């Protein structure tokens, strides 16, 4: 049995906006994602050159060496638009908040073995600055990108990066006194183990090609740091030594990385398949930045895994290479 409520039915004149229809093969019902993003950015008859970069038009695909016949092919497989993003993050935040409450109410943070706590703080807290660096890069990517299909997820990604930096800050404030944040920052600025990573991240701040920024930050840096730190260090190393409270306090991060990887893979796969030229360039960027990142992460892996560092890092690199290969990248 089905119950059918009758409503007055009016036949619509059209299904969607023409900028959307042109990109989905004609006038048909369009999703919220499609109406929020497809064909949205202005493309022509711009008035003034940017005073901050007069060599380009205000909206200009030439800000990347990657070339696309249709930039709107670089869609987000997650189909996120603002409302779906913020509602989803609100749910995830609720879980993360419950984890913070759980750890705090049962004093799990106080019962962490000292050496585990120290190791967790040593490795995780300087990474709040790396997350802030990611936020900078994704804002830069957002502000320079061509086509709304990149701009819209870019700013959401940047805000996610900020959220992660703030979760790590909260972790520090829960596990110890606020001074640990200063200690971690001092490590970030001068500690020997952190310098190659900071150097690399600062170098990424002067990259101006928006697709390179996207790739360097969201594919290479995240693609090596998240599996190394959250899968292997937090979930394996710390947990096996009685540090599962730390895994609860960072549960957002590996979950988020899984989601954002879908977006990154979706974009890169299409960009690579577009042309041999794109493929060569993306492969070259990947190789250069991956090799640099692996070197930068080596001293951090040594801190995190001791004797096990090589195995852990190699596993992560292999995983990354396999992912790159699946996307058609030769690196």
């Amino acid at each position, binding site marked *: 049995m089905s119950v059918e409520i009758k409503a007055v039915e009016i036949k619509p004149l059209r*299904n969607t906006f023409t900028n959307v229809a042109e990109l989905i093969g004609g006038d048909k019902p369009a999703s919220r994602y499609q109406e929020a993003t497809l064909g949205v950015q202005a493309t022509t008859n711009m008035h003034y*050159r940017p005073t901050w970069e007069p060599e380009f038009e205000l909206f200009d695909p030439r800000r990347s060496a990657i070339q696309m016949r249709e930039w709107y092919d670089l869609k987000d497989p997650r189909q996120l638009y603002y409302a779906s993003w*913020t509602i989803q993050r609100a749910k*995830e935040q609720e879980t993360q908040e419950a984890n913070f409450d759980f750890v705090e109410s049962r004093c799990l943070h106080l019962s962490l073995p000292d050496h585990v706590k120290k190791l967790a703080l040593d490795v995780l807290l300087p990474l709040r600055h790396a997350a802030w660096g990611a*936020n900078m890069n994704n804002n830069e990517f*957002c502000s320079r990108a061509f086509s709304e299909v990149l701009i819209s997820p870019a700013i959401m990604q940047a*805000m996610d990066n*900020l*959220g992660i930096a703030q979760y790590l800050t909260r972790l520090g404030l829960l596990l110890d006194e606020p001074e640990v944040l200063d200690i971690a920052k001092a490590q970030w600025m001068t500690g020997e183990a952190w310098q190659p990573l900071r150097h690399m991240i600062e170098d990424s701040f002067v990259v101006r090609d928006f697709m390179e920024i996207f790739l360097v930050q969201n594919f290479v840096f995240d693609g090596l740091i998240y599996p190394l730190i959250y899968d292997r260090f937090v979930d394996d190393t710390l947990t096996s030594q009685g540090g599962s409270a730390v895994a609860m306090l960072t549960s957002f991060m590996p979950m988020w990385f899984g989601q954002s990887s879908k977006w990154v893979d979706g974009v890169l796969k299409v960009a690579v398949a577009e042309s041999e030229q794109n493929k060569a360039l993306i492969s070259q960027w990947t190789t250069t930045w991956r090799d640099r990142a692996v070197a930068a992460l080596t001293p951090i892996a040594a801190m995190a895994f001791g004797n096990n560092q090589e195995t852990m890092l190699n596993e992560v690199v292999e995983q990354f290479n396999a992912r790159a290969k699946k996307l058609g990248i030769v690196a």
Partner: protein
Amino acid sequence: MDMKVAKKKLGIKERYGHMTRGLGWEPTYQPADAVFPYDKYEGIKIHDWDKWVDPFRLTMDAYWKYQGEKDRKLYAVIEAFAQNNGHLNITDARYLSAIKLFWQGVSPLENYVVQGFARAGRHFRGEASRVACQMQAVDELRHYQTQAHSISNYNKYYNGFHSQRHMWDRVWYLSVPKSFGEDALTAGPFEFLIAISFSFEYVLTNLLFVPFMSGAAYNGDMSTVTFGFSAQSDESRHMTLGIEAIKFLLEQDPANVPIVQGWIDKWFWRGSKVLALVGMMMDYMLPKRVMSWKEAWEIYAEENGGALFRDLARYGIRPPKGWADACEAKDHISHQVWLLFYEYGGAAAFHTWSLTNEELDWLSAKYPDSFDKYYRPRLEFLRDKHARGERVYQSTLPTLCTTCQIPLCFTEPGDPTKISHRETVYEDEKYVFCSVHCQEIFCNEPEKFVQSWLPVNQIYQGNCFNPDVDPTAPDFDPLKAVLEYFKYNLGRDNGEFEGSEDQRNFAMWRGQASKN
């Protein structure tokens, strides 16, 4: 085990500091000027970014919680609106012109500033200011997208909404807000902040956002008004950013004061010209009127703005140069702009119409000093002609102001019978302006404003035809070709409301939904 219990409790300010300012660092492997290349060339001097006062203290966890909650409610309404033919509850199909104007001319600006705030959110050296800008960037994304989703339903049933994106880049009257937005986006990050956060969000938002949203509430537009309520708390955050930003710049260095003053002069005037479109909407397009444009101007500009500039006087800031002229224009601009659109109604992607006697009386009462004397006779004359079957449509192209890009239709301060007109010769070329203030804006940055893409000039140069048309063909109709370039559905999107498809469909569907 070390069971420390007495942990230091952090104050909100300190805690928020760790969540924002504490995250950044001074680069050493790259020169700071290479990492932040854009925050010096405008001449603004910042000595201590730590003096920035956080306009609101919102961390991402709280942001997601509030915004997620708001969007769950908003989308439930959008959904219900679509399911129950909420569009049939509006007062009258003429109201649709107001939403068309909003969708065509305002929503794209929301989207524009996403990139602008992301750039500011990346390129200021102070972390706290960056976080505030980023939150506005993602809020503006919200505003554009929720507007697209609420208006999507109107687009299914009514004309004029379908090609908003295409029109934005091409249509003559949309070059007014487009050039405004692009002027701000192509400026340096500090001018952008003064243009959008201060001059627009703080000084003028109540004259843009509030009239449209109140108009929606008064006219039964559940979808738009729910968006309006939902965006209110975002807007208050944006206003706070505007006021904190200007105070910060003024306090940092006395040399900043004249630069900021110049931007206030420029952006107040530019903003007031864009708002002429809102004035027309309030006085003419709302079947159920909220208040007159003049009343809105008096409350939001003269009273609130007056108080604001008295407050800023201690920094050495005076009211914007165009203030007195803009105040005088409150008696005129809505009428002048409506008459312009009425006469160029064939070239606008919304409908215009003749007012009823009752509506004319309302305007007479609201504008005792100007309406009966200057505008009512013209409106009645046009209405009579229309009644005789001679609906007036202008087909000659108007002259546009090089700066604000509005056709020359405003009158000289002190003489409402004389069209205001100024000229400047720059590098052997003549440039035309609607006012002394637009002329001055040009003269301060001629190298920028000579680039203006002026639709009328572009039409004359043959740049506004589709690539497949042949202007040498014997039956070539240039006006029709231009409207096709705009992607108008001729006779459905444009022209007179009386007898339009929107009018017919609305009446028919409302009949279906309310009668047996």
